[in-house]
């Protein structure tokens, strides 16, 4: 079935354009999400590496 579908695809050169559009949509969604997160949450997430009980850095 897929074989027949792809054999009938015309203008496969448009794949570049289609793929770019797919990425731009994906990228836009990710950026919108990133900017929708509250600053307080971001700050909390970014401090996760410091919540373990190992010693602070720069002791070497």
């Amino acid at each position: 079935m897929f074989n027949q579908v792809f054999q009938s695809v015309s203008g496969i050169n448009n794949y570049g354009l289609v793929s770019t559009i797919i990425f731009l949509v994906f990228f836009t969604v990710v950026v919108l999400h990133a900017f929708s997160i509250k600053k307080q949450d971001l700050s909390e997430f970014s401090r996760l590496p410091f919540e373990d009980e190992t010693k602070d850095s720069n002791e070497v």
Partner: protein
Amino acid sequence: MENQTFYYDNKTVKLFAYATLFWGVVGMVVGLLLSLQFIWPQLSFGIPYTTFGRIRPIHTNAVIFAFVGNGMFMGIYYSLQRLCKARMFSDILSKINFWGWQLIIVAAALTFAFGFTTGKEYAELEWPIDLLVAVVWIVFGWNMIGTIIKRRTRHIYVAIWFYLATFITVAVLHVANSIEIPITLFKSYIVYAGVQDALVQWWYGHNAVAFFLTTPFLGLMYYYLPKAANRPIYSYRLSIVHFWALIFLYIWAGPHHLIYSALPNWTQSLGVVFSVMLIAPSWGGMVNGLLTLRGAWDKVREDPVLKFMVVAVTAYGMSTFEGPMMSTKTVNAISHFTDWTVGHAHIGALGWNGFLVFAVLYWLIPRIFQTNLYSKKLANTHFWIGTLGIVFYAVPLYWGAITQFLMWKEFTPEGFLKYPNFLETVTQLKPMYAARSIGGALYITGIVLGIYNLILTIRGGNFLAEEAASAPALVAVSGKRASGEGAHRWLERRPIQFSIVALIAILIGGIIEIVPLYLVKTNIPSIASVKPYTPLELQGRDIYVREGCYTCHSQQVRPFRSETERYGQYAKAGEYVYDHPFQWGSKRNGPDLSREGVVSGKQYKPNSWHYNHMLNPQKLNAQSIMPVYKWLIADDLDISTTPRKICVMQMLGVPYPAGFDLTANDDLMRQAELISADLKSQGIDCAPNKEIIAMIAYLQRLGVDIHSAGLSAASVNPVK
């Protein structure tokens, strides 16, 4: 909620740390030997196990999968436990992961030295070891995901996203690029052929760089850089965009390794477009790393860990700018097949991966041994020697690349190639190769100093195998989205669902590129004159693969006047349909061989020349850097495998007549006797059952079919 006490497993971390140091030295010393063979080919010692074609995969696999791989596991095992506030899921799985990985490395080194290889760059392991890799990788993923599931923190930190993407994508790549049909215990044929094999291979090859050398190290950067600088990552928001954009885009970029090849143009264009777009997320990551040091640059002066990290992240930025530039058609036309690619790869491997591994080692070893680093001064010396080593390594290769492509492409005013003899362009590069070796030696010297420093640190410390920690258990909440909880927030606490979304993101690019190539017939036009290899040629081709000839010789003439004038007709997709695996190569240390057998061609040499060339290349030309292959003349050809090879080829669609496997060896001997007789007429006494006869048969077949198709060089339309 009551605090729970638990213990971090530092023993596995320590084992991986020792392994990365050991294999780092082994891999790089082999690399140094390879580099010296460019100057003194005698350093192959006239034995098969140390020839360039066999030890080059040992070098690349040892550095990528042994040095960097063990470094990656070390960093992940340490940081994952702390980010999840949980011990690794299973000590047994940790042990299987460690010892299984070391077994794979040893098996790889031995099998490559003995010539057991699939002939696919960075995926040379034969099928039993491929299976072992799959098992050990699943064990790693099982252990990692199990740890994430039993974590004591709600949110999964961004470093873990990168670890998850690494596990998922490497599994997909490894399986897809290793579908082989076994011939013997250590010989198989890949199911893909020619152009399709090339696309799958470089989809794998490029994404091995992306998802083995890049994403896990970005994860390490997101954990260890903030720890070392003692400040959180510059922008967590940017890290989210960085992660998703990077994994989505990277998977599309593979075809940029095949620009101006016989790959359909639309696939090449996709590879170029997405490679250029990759600059944005890559630099987003680099900027995020470097800006984390805002206000802490004074520490960089004093702290060797931060020094290593800064150069590592900078090298990442350099490589990820250079890579997309090399992907554009204009630059690729001159950079491909030259030492530019090697220089680019080593900026990434030595700068990004190597320096980040050492940054993590210098940070982590004192902590798990509860002491301070033995000598900051020694670590700083390591840093400066290593940095100089990278510069001395890369700059001569860039210089050499410019020399190469200028010489390859130069014409006289009369319209002839100025340097028609390929060897002239190699000889010119020897000083650059010598300088490169000095750079490599400097880098290794730095590592030896680093190991000495770490050994003394370890001796002065007290190893903390079980590190106590405590945290409250995670309160179970509904798996469904809470009110007001965004979709991604929900995803960030659901590792399985997160992994599935990441899997979909990485599959989109691969499916769009690879599936149509298989299904749209017009992508691979068939050529009626292209016939399957004879049994003797097939055996000869397998010797060609065994000896790793593809590491120095391409089989792909690009559509440039400078190449068609030098070699003959440019490559067509249809001429490779029976090549399991494809052997296009990626670097020309010697000339292209794809038109070697065309009697009226520019590259043609008689059987006796090939015999003498394999016996002693330097006797034919004192400047040659080709190793001797005298064992091909001494060793008998193993024809017991011929029937099975024919059967497997038939299974793969190669149109040998039914029952041909039963008579294949008769056919083989008839052809071998003809070549033997021809050699005898030239005064060379060589029995027809020797390996050299099969090798000559294969070399003399190259380009013959496409030439007989009646497509003369004059009918082609080179780009320039």
